[in-house]
Structure formats: structure tokens, C-alpha cells
């Protein structure tokens, strides 16, 4: 069985016996699947979102939609097109260490940005009359619903389960590199679709804003 001795990660085999890291190996970071320190920040953001919707607070809705949407699209494209390919060329220990620190943050960050963007966006569309059939933006918004729907199914049905499964695997004393690689392939396969959907979102939203 090939074992990466620097990270204690089995790259070929079931790592059947928990031997722990070899003597002298660097200590792997302890993975906290949900970073608890980030939860209060998420709570504040969601409270701000609920207040903006509840009080029909125009600036709050604009802020949530523009800031959330810009970060969501930017991070998705940056991670999918820039970070992902670089990560794919790193050694397995380097990939594992990066992912151990990076993915827990994404567990909190991305759903929060998605909630900010979508909830405020729907409210803005209603308030501004863009959803009325007579609006020139109506068709564009329906297309954007479909785009968001595709991204939601990919994110919730494919990527988030893989993300959490990888984190659970990496918490083990001897993570199985094969399992991690198999799960991480989902990110590679879907990066193209997500990238395409995000570019479509940019086109749709700039069209809507300029009509």
C-alpha cells in the first residue's frame, strides 16, 4: 500500500488499520467541519437579510443582492477557474492541507452568500415590478431562475455532500486519498457548468439593470 508519509494519507488502499501518522511526521491541522466562530457572523448577516425583507428596506435589499451576488459569482469563478486547476496540480499532502483549511470556511460562506443574493433579489424583483408579465425584464428573470435552479441542484445535490464527505474523510487519522480524489472529481466535473451559469447570471443581471 502506498502511503504518503508526510501527511499520513493513504493514496492507494483502504488504510485498513488506523496506524496514525508516522513518527516525525508534521501534525495535520485539526479539521473543524463547521467553523463555530463564523456562526455568529452568519447569524448577523441573516438577521440583516430578514430585517431588509421584513421592512422593505431598499438599501438593505440592494446591499444584500449586490454584495452577496458579486461575492458568490466572483468566488465561484475564481475557485472554479483559477484555484481549482492549481489545486489539481499540487501534491496530495499540499492539496489535503489546503482543503482542510479552505473547505470548512466554504461550508459557511457560500450558503450565506446564496441566501443573501436570492432572497433579496426576489424581493427586489417584486418591489421594482420586474416580475410583472408586462415588464421587459420578466423573461430575463425567469431565465435567471432556471440558471439559479441548475446551480442550486449542483451545489446542494452534488457539491455540498462531497465537500462534507471529504472533510469527514480528512478528519480520520489516516484519510483515504482515493476516496478524497473520487469525491473531489465532482468539483472538477461541475466547475464548467457552474462557470457557465455564473457567466449567464452576469449577462442576465447586467441586462436587467440596464433596461
Amino acid at each position, binding site marked *: *500500500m502506498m502511503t504518503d508519509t508526510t501527511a499520513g494519507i493513504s493514496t*492507494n*488502499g*483502504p*488504510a*485498513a*488499520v488506523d496506524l496514525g501518522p508516522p513518527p516525525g511526521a508534521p501534525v495535520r491541522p485539526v479539521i473543524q467541519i*463547521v467553523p463555530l466562530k463564523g456562526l455568529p457572523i452568519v447569524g448577523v448577516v*441573516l438577521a440583516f*437579510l*430578514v430585517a431588509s*425583507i*421584513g421592512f422593505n428596506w431598499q438599501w438593505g435589499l440592494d446591499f444584500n443582492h449586490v454584495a452577496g451576488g458579486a461575492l458568490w459569482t466572483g468566488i465561484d469563478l475564481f475557485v472554479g477557474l483559477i484555484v481549482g486547476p492549481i489545486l489539481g496540480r499540487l501534491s496530495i499532502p499540499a492539496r489535503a492541507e489546503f482543503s482542510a483549511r479552505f473547505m470548512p470556511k466554504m461550508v459557511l460562506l457560500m*450558503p450565506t452568500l446564496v*441566501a443573501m443574493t436570492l*432572497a433579496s433579489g*426576489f*424581493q427586489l*424583483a*417584486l418591489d421594482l415590478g420586474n*416580475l*410583472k*408579465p408586462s415588464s421587459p425584464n420578466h423573461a430575463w428573470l*425567469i431565465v435567471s*431562475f*432556471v440558471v439559479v*435552479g441548475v446551480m*442550486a*441542484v449542483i451545489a*446542494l*445535490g*452534488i457539491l*455540498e*455532500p*462531497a465537500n*462534507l*464527505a471529504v472533510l*469527514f*474523510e480528512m478528519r480520520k487519522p489516516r484519510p*483515504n486519498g*482515493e*476516496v478524497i480524489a*473520487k*469525491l473531489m472529481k465532482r468539483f472538477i466535473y461541475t466547475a464548467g457548468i457552474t462557470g457557465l451559469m455564473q457567466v449567464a447570471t452576469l449577462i442576465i443581471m447586467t441586462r436587467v439593470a440596464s433596461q
Partner: protein
Amino acid sequence: MSAQSLNGPSGATTERRFPPVAELGAAALMLIVAGGIYMASYAPRRPPLGVPIALAAASGVLVVANIFMAARTKQFAWDKFFLVGRWTLLSYLIAAALIEFAFVKDHVRGGPLALITAMLVLFAVIVPLIISYTVARYQSTRTDTA
């Protein structure tokens, strides 16, 4: 069909098959999302309910079948399934409540609100089911043989 490939100590490949819970869950999620898009496309008017009811019903059938299949999985990491399941269920119930709040705030009432509520309940069950089953499935694959 989902299958987990494992290389044994000798390099031999063993496979463990799991029921396609995640795949069916994703299909159920797709139906709910499609129903949601259909209803949202009519906002602020009252949407016709036939199509979204059919989509929600089909999704509900898939979810029930999925729960049944998941429950029959043998030698499964149920501790991890329930650990992940309860926290993800909590988070998606909060998300569903947020969406429900927005619809109530927008004066959606009667049949459309009842349907949206049913769809949100399905949504709040499907996603944790997919996530917790996927996590537990990969915790269950090792044969623990040296």
C-alpha cells in the same frame, strides 16, 4: 448505479454497492426546484397549481422511496448519518423558514402557500438526506481488513 471502489491491501479491487439515495435525492430536488421556478415565474399573480402539485407529488414519492431504501442499507455508518443529518436538517429548516417568511411577507395565501410549505418541507428533508447519506456512505466503505 453508485459503487465505491476500494483497493485492498493486495491491490485487488473490491466494490460495495449502495442504493442510489443521493442520485434519487438529486432528482427529487430537481423536481422541487422546477416547481418553485414555475410558481415564482407567476409572482406576484396567483399561479395555476396543477403542474407544481404534480412536481411536488412526484418529488414526495421519490423522497419516501429514498428514505425506505436508505433505511434498508446494511452495515452502514448510522452514527455519522444521524450526526450529520440532525445538524443539516436544522440548518435547512432554518433556510426553509426564511423562504416561507418571504412568501408570507409577500401576501401569498391559501393553496399556493400550502403548496409552497409542502415543497419547503420536502426541500428541508431531501438535502440533509443526500448530505448525510453521502457522508455516511463513505464512512461505511472500508472493510477494515489489514
